Each structure stands twice: as structure tokens, then as C-alpha cells.
């Protein structure tokens, strides 16, 4: 066998040139699980107080009824549904990164997907609260489930609202399962290095006795692939189904065929923005520069830019169709969005989602973490406004002028909206502290395996500018 000796400089992955070995991944992932500082506790405290605020507001809402919200005729859907759509959308980027990029064998996915996927699970968990809050009498939630009433009357399967129940519960289940299955080998790794007896015990139970045997990996890799293949059409369908909650009705501003792709693109836009919003602080606090490299941010920025362009195109198309269809009510609603009562919401949505992200065309902005972080915050805000603009002004300004009516946010709704962020960040912070935030096993897939022999046929070694040997994996996985 033709072999040459290993060069003095180690071979590195082109994606993670600063990661020296398999063990380093374990050490760095364990670093996330060590004792948290005061800053962490302060953040967690803030998140929990927001959750308490939400609980108080919701109890108020239950006790005095839905009249405590600003919902009235004709605006029957307001901040609750806006926030529901917002959080479901946030979840989409996580599945895009974890499942779709997995199928595409995109090697830059490995180090960020765990965060993204955790974000998905918690975002959908947050979203799922809102229909329950919105129905006003949460204890009747089970009416949404396919159970017959005592008169044997079943839910209406022809209704988009019931499709949504199926879509969101399926999404929550499948993304949680996908998240947990991916975690098993990494929890096992955390188990093997854990020193605290309680942690060791919990990780032992959660890792299901995983040892990384050939049998386990053989079935695991296939199962993971099929889960990714199932999650891919699912993620594209979920926001389509959410969009049909609107598009299947006849409200002007809602009743358009463009809604499904428009919502999916918007979902990915907001989700990628949220990934960046979460990644940058985690990167800074835990100094994860070896894992979140310039390449990762660059690709995320391009994804954000692409979806922003699609969303911008959809905004333009909506106006074009409103104009070109000659439909009076449609045209009026769209004109009202940018000039009427809610002009500021309409314009902030256009500015934040379609105009500000265009800055990412400039490579310098893409590589500047502060700038990118700021843009991601703008997009997060803009995407919340987008959902608001779709929902409220359309209802407030539908067919008959005598029922044009405004909608006013109440403290109950504002508290529940803020509480939803607390709820989301509470789960995310707990996740960071207790479960491996870096996908230990999967990052190793894009690292060069430790080899005794340096086989030129296998390693396309190149020397970079600083004289370090860098291994190039064209696919990121194996050829």
C-alpha cells in the first residue's frame, strides 16, 4: 500500500481549520455544559419573569374572558394569531438547516444545526401556546382533536383550521423526535465525560445506553436520513398549511394563491434571522469561533439574502396583483396597508424584510458579526410586523366600509406577546446548560479522521497561506 508519513502539521477540515482533533470537539461541547456565570442566571431570571407575566396575563384572560384582548368584530384575529404565525415561521429555519441541508450534504450545517434545531422545537412549542390562548377557553382545547362529541359529531376535516392542528402537532412531534434522535450519541458523549453524579445519571438514562457500536450506527445513520427525508416536505408544508388558514378564506388581502410559497420563504427568512440572533451571543460568550466560522455566517447571510429577495418579490407581486386584477376590495386593502391606519406597520415590514437585508450583498457586512446581528434583529421585528400586517389590516378593512374598525392592543396581549419571548428563551437557555449544544458526533463527520498512514488518494491535502495543511473534503462527508 502506497503510504507516506504524516506531515508535521496536522490535517484539518477546510470548514473547521481550528479544530485539532475529535477530542477537542468533546472538550468544547462540554465547556457549554459547565457551571454558568451570573450573566446566564440573570438572563434566565429575566426569561422566567416574562413567563410569569404571561401566566398572570393569561389567567386574567381566562378569568375575565377574551374581551380582555383587543379582539372584536371584525378583527377577530389579532396579536395571538400574529404571534402564532411568527413563532411557527421561526421554527422553519431550524428544520431547513437540520434536514434539508443534511439531504444536500452541506458541510457547514454540522456545527450550527443543533442550535437551529433546538430553536425549532422551542419555537413550535411557543407557537403551540397561541391557538390555545386564542380560543379563550383553553380547557376546550380537545375539541380541536379528532374526537367525536357525545352526539358523534367529528371535527370538520374540510376546514383549514383543522389542517393546521394536524400540521402543527405533526411538526412539533417530528421535529422533537428528530432533535432527540440526533442528540442520543451526543448525550452519550456527555455521559462519558460527566463528573457530577446527578448529571451522569440523567445522561445515562437519556442516552438510552448508546455506545456507538456498529449496529447502532448502521441503523442510526439510515433512520436519521429517512427522518430528514420526511422532515423536508413537512417543513415546506407546515407554513403552507398555516398560510391556507388565510388563503382559503375570502378576505381581501388573504385570498391569494401566492400565499404558500410566500409564507414558506418568509418563515425561512425569519428563522435564519433568529438563528443568527441566537448564534452570535452564544459564539461570543462561549468563544466558539472554531465552530461558527466566517464561512458559516457567510452562507447564512446568503440564505437570508435569498429569502429576503423572495419575500420582497412576493410583496411586489401582491401589489401588482391587487392592481392588475382590477378587484376593487383587494386594491383598496393593499393601498390601505401603506397609507391607512397601519401605514407604519406596512412600511416597517417592507423596510425591515426587503430593504435592510439587501446590505448583505456587501461581503464586508456579511463578515461583520455586529452588522449581521443587527440586521437579523431588524428582520425578526420586520417578520412579526409582516404577519401583523397580513392579519389585522386585512380584517380591519374588508368589504363593507361600515365595519371598518381598528384594533387596539391591550396590556394582556402585550404581556402574552412578551411572555412568549420569555418562554422561548427560557427553554433555549435551559437547553444550552443541560444538553450538548454542539453536535459532537456530526461535527466529527466533517473532520479528517485520525489516520496513521497518510494516503494521498484519500486526502487531498493543501497548504494554506499560513502553512497549515488543510484537508479538503469536497462534499463534507465522504466521497
Amino acid at each position: 500500500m502506497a503510504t507516506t508519513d504524516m506531515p508535521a502539521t496536522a490535517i484539518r477540515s477546510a470548514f473547521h481549520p481550528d479544530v485539532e482533533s475529535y477530542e477537542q470537539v468533546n472538550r468544547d461541547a462540554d465547556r457549554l455544559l459547565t457551571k454558568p456565570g451570573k450573566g446566564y442566571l440573570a438572563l434566565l431570571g429575566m426569561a422566567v419573569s416574562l413567563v410569569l407575566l404571561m401566566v398572570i396575563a393569561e389567567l386574567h384572560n381566562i378569568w375575565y374572558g377574551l374581551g380582555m384582548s383587543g379582539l372584536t368584530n371584525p378583527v377577530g384575529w389579532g396579536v395571538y394569531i400574529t404571534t402564532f404565525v411568527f413563532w411557527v415561521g421561526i421554527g422553519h429555519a431550524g428544520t431547513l438547516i437540520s434536514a434539508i441541508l443534511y439531504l444536500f450534504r452541506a458541510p457547514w450545517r454540522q456545527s450550527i444545526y443543533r442550535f437551529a434545531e433546538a430553536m425549532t422545537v422551542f419555537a413550535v412549542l411557543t407557537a403551540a401556546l397561541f391557538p390555545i390562548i386564542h380560543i379563550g377557553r383553553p380547557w376546550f382545547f380537545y375539541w380541536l382533536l379528532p374526537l367525536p362529541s357525545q352526539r358523534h359529531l367529528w371535527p370538520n376535516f374540510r376546514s383549514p383550521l383543522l389542517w393546521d392542528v394536524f400540521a402543527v402537532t405533526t411538526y412539533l412531534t417530528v421535529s422533537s423526535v428528530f432533535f432527540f434522535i440526533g442528540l442520543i450519541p451526543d448525550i452519550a458523549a456527555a455521559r462519558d465525560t460527566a463528573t457530577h453524579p446527578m448529571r451522569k445519571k440523567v445522561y445515562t438514562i437519556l442516552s438510552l445506553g448508546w455506545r456507538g457500536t456498529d449496529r447502532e450506527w448502521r441503523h442510526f445513520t439510515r433512520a436519521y436520513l429517512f427522518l430528514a427525508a420526511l422532515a423536508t416536505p413537512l417543513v415546506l408544508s407546515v407554513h403552507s398549511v398555516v398560510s391556507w388558514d388565510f388563503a382559503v378564506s375570502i378576505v381581501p388581502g388573504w385570498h391569494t394563491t401566492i400565499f404558500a410559497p410566500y409564507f414558506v420563504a418568509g418563515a425561512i427568512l425569519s428563522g435564519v434571522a433568529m438563528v443568527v440572533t441566537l448564534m452570535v451571543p452564544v459564539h461570543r460568550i462561549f468563544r466558539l469561533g472554531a465552530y461558527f466560522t466566517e464561512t458559516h455566517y457567510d452562507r447564512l447571510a446568503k440564505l437570508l439574502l435569498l429569502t429576503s429577495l423572495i419575500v420582497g418579490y412576493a410583496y411586489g407581486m401582491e401589489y401588482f396583483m391587487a392592481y392588475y386584477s382590477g378587484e376593487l376590495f383587494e386594491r383598496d386593502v393593499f393601498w390601505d396597508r401603506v397609507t391607512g391606519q397601519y401605514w407604519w406597520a406596512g412600511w416597517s415590514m417592507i423596510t425591515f424584510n426587503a430593504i435592510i437585508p439587501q446590505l448583505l450583498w456587501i461581503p464586508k457586512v456579511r463578515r461583520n458579526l455586529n452588522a449581521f446581528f443587527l440586521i437579523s434583529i431588524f428582520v425578526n421585528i420586520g417578520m412579526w410586523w409582516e404577519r401583523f400586517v397580513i392579519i389585522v389590516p386585512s380584517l380591519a378593512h374588508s368589504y363593507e366600509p361600515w365595519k371598518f374598525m381598528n384594533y387596539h392592543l391591550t396590556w394582556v396581549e402585550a404581556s402574552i406577546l412578551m411572555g412568549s419571548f420569555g418562554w422561548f428563551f427560557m427553554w433555549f437557555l435551559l437547553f444550552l446548560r443541560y444538553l450538548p449544544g454542539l453536535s459532537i458526533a456530526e461535527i466529527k463527520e466533517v473532520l479528517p479522521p485520525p489516520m496513521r498512514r497518510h494516503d494521498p488518494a484519500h486526502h487531498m491535502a493543501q497548504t494554506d497561506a499560513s502553512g497549515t495543511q488543510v484537508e479538503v473534503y469536497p462534499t463534507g462527508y465522504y466521497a
Partner: protein
Amino acid sequence: MSKLRTGVLGVFAHLDAATDAIRRLKREGFEITTYAPTPRHELEEAMETPESPVRIFTLTGAFTGTAAGTALATWTSIDWPLIVGGKEIVALPAFSVIMFELTILIGALSTVAGLFLLGRLPHIGPPEAPMYHPSFTGGNFGVFAHAPRDRYDDVQRIMTDAGSEEVLVDHR
């Protein structure tokens, strides 16, 4: 099906050393269990691992889901035939969403069931190979040769020749 409960465990820092050991041990007729921190095709090739049948679970589950979605929506609609929104009683375009969601849901859950059954997760009772080393989720590869006690010396020699860092023998 069941492998010998005794044997020798080799700890390997290098993947090619581990695959060398696997090939030589297999040639000697030993059954092998490997440990790896990450799935590597080199190990699968050395072990000559066949394709995992998890896909059958996925397919069966997905089709069961489609059928269940169709049946649920259709049967409940026929059970109390009430025209809503001017749609047919059995409105397949509307039901397609339910059919799709249940395809994915049951397909995914049955994939997980396949993984658990075939991969023997969660592990309850004695593991497949009696020896393990915590570095196998870190950076090391492990090769456990299921061998009778009188052949421990042969296995140890092969492992050491192949480049094992440490050879652990099951002395129970």
C-alpha cells in the same frame, strides 16, 4: 445471532489501525463489535455492513399513515354527512392535507420504532459486547473481538500488531 460473551477489546487512536485489526480478525473468523465516535464508512467497509432495513419501517409507516389519514377523514365525514362550505362530503383535495400530515407523522414515528428495535435501543440488560471504554464517544475507535478464552493471545497479538493503543482483556 448471539455473539460470544467473552473477548478482547482493542482501543485504537487511528481509524486505519482499527480497520486493519478488523480485517485481520475477521479473516481469523472472529465476530466483531466496533465502537466509533462518529459514523465512518471505512469501518462499515471493513465490517462489510449490509444495508439497514430501517427503510422498510419508514415505508410501511408512511403508507399506513396515508391510509389512516384517508380513512379518518373519510369515515368521520360519512359518519355524520353534513355539507360545510359547499364542499363534497368526501372532499379529497381538503383531506389530502390530513393524509399528508399523517403520512409524515406515522412514517417518522415508525422510523424511530425501527431504529429502536433494530439498534436495540434503549439498551436494557447485558450489552452486545461486555466491554466498553468511555473514550469511544471521544476520539478513539474500539474493536471488540468476541473470542473464547483460549484464543485471547491470538487476538491480543493481532490488535497490538495492527496498532492498538491499549488492549483490554475480559477476565471475568
